[in-house]
């Protein structure tokens, strides 16, 4: 196995407040290999976007990294000074966010924005950069790129803007692409186009992608592996097929059953009682135990680490106990 592009170990992100420190990302570890898509899913407040922000050094103060390390191709990047980190972003790490309008400057033509980015990271002439920008836009599926390169962002539709952002993110040939809810603001028919595009570009260029989304369907279509987050921790991580079809963690099981699908029709959706705990009230032991139908004494006191479960890893004491599959069905 070659070295992973991104390697995150025991990452901790916290928000110090006057009374106490709130831990929003709690000892999260994962790797992403070249050309691989790692999906990160979770409900709101699970810490998935914060994990992404921490990796690229874009945490909003007062949030900060309290522990662990982030390595990009072996080089440690979580402790770089802001100026060096800024150079690294854009050059080696591309970013795509939910709302393409906020990623583009409304006052500049899209061509100028891409050309500027290319010239920041590569020694090329204006004309060369322009040709490259046109090629990138074409690759991102914008027809008639040569004619549209001098348009302003508002002249594009939402889906087209997201293609522009994608072209912008890829223009320095990054090793890693962080996509945070890239298709959430788009309609289904457009969403499918963007997903197909993301997947193709990453495969062709060997870019590693961290795809953050709350939409399990998008993950199932796009990701190679998936990490399910709950209350700032990774509940389960593994190949997407295994996590979706043979989940081991009770939370993952509940989550999969709760999603209405186009497959066989369920009479009732699985219901996980309660809601995710707030940051200031994360329970002791396993964070999921108050909502879990199978919690036992150990879950209430000791936090489970990720342990092998089939082809995946799950942070659950049931797995350690080797409870047979049928007993660990989804909680009622």
């Amino acid at each position, binding site marked *: 196995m070659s070295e992973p592009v991104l390697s995150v170990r025991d990452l901790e992100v916290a928000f110090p407040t006057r009374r106490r420190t709130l831990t929003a990302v709690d000892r999260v570890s994962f790797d992403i290999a070249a050309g691989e898509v790692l999906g990160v899913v979770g*409900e*709101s407040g699970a810490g998935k976007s914060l994990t992404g922000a921490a990796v690229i050094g874009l945490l909003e103060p007062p949030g900060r990294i309290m522990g662990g390390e982030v390595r990009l191709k072996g080089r440690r990047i979580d402790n770089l000074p802001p100026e060096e980190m800024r150079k690294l972003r854009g050059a080696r790490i591309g970013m795509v966010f939910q709302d393409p309008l906020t990623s583009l400057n409304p006052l500049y033509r899209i061509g100028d924005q891409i050309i500027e980015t290319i010239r920041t990271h590569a020694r090329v002439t204006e004309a060369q950069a322009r040709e490259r920008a046109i090629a990138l836009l074409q690759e991102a599926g914008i027809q008639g790129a040569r004619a549209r390169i001098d348009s302003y962002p508002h002249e594009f*539709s939402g*889906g*087209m803007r997201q293609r522009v952002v994608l072209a912008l993110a890829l223009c320095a040939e990054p090793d890693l692409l962080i996509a945070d809810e890239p298709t959430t603001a788009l*309609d*289904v*028919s*457009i*969403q*499918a*186009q963007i*997903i*197909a595009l993301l997947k193709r570009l990453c495969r062709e260029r060997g870019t590693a992608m961290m795809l953050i989304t*709350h*939409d*399990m*369907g*998008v993950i*199932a*279509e*796009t990701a190679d592996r998936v990490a399910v987050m709950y209350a700032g921790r990774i509940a389960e991580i593994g190949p*997407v*097929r295994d996590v*979706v*079809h043979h989940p081991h963690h009770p939370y993952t099981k*509940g*989550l*999969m*059953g*709760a*999603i*209405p*699908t*186009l*497959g066989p*029709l*369920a009479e*009732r*959706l*699985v*219901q*996980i009682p309660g*809601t*995710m705990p707030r940051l200031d009230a994360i329970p002791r032991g396993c964070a999921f135990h108050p909502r879990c139908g199978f919690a036992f004494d150990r879950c209430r006191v000791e936090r489970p680490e990720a342990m092998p479960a089939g082809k995946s890893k799950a942070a659950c004491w049931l797995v350690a106990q080797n409870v047979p599959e049928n007993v660990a069905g989804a909680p009622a």
Partner: protein
Amino acid sequence: MMAAPLVEAKGLTRVFDVSKPWLSRLIEREGKAYLKAVTDVSFAVGRRETVALVGESGSGKSTVARMTVGLLTPTAGTVSIDGIDMWAAARAVERQALRRRLQMIFQDPFASLNPRWRVERIVADPIKAFGLAKDSAEIKHRVGELLTLVGLDPADGVKYPHEFSGGQRQRICIARALSSNPEFLVCDEPTSALDVSVQAQILNLMRDLQDRLGLSYLFISHNLAVVRHMATRIGVMYLGRIVEMAPAAELFSAPRHPYTRLLLDALPDLAMSGRARRPIEGEIPNPIAPPDGCAFHPRCPWAFEPCKVDVPDLIERGAGARAEACHAVEAGRT
């Protein structure tokens, strides 16, 4: 249809004036501009039935919802409840009586509750407005009942909306909607703002309430999987028109209209059946200047000459109350 439907919408049309101010029009020598948000939409909802309208943004589904509950006057067309025309019901008393029987649940549970009112006051408001209780003791009792019905604690009544999570707020919205004993609920994207595990709780609750209270729903959503789970019949909307109407199971097992087929193909799904993805080419056209003929023809792989000229009618074909508006299906080209 066997029995008379509870709610019937006929030929609903809504046009919005989206013209620039008159001075700009004068200077730029432009005429008025109109947006046809909804064109000739008809559907019927039977008792204890859930009819869903699905579509992408700009398809006009929310406009239909608002016209159905009477929040928006239709430009043309009628909505009748139990045979009484909502907009023609001349006397205010009659309209008032009609309004009690239908309620709406909105998408954003954060924006649809008054932040300065306690929950008990929010839920009691329709009871007072329609004069459904004798005294304050009865109101209090009824509010407690409603809160229990939607899975909250009657003691929660004294709290304010901000003390609740999104899912709990949507429960409050449902309690408020149920407080006038309605028969018909219009739900406009009721779970779109919620996380999946909470969405499952609300969808299950809505089905339980339907069984217990004999409710009928008009369910508006962009999420096909959610709609499939909830609806008995589904109407697919594209650019202001219903392009296909079918019983839920049949729509998913054998979609007929090209748009429906492509939409189902494009949908990311957990099943990962490995079926070939065929993303729909192109984008939704500008509703101010929609294409001639069938609005879907520029994106449709089966389009032929008539599609560019004639708007296809929604025609019922075969058994099972299925209907679709497509020249290509009519000509057997698909």
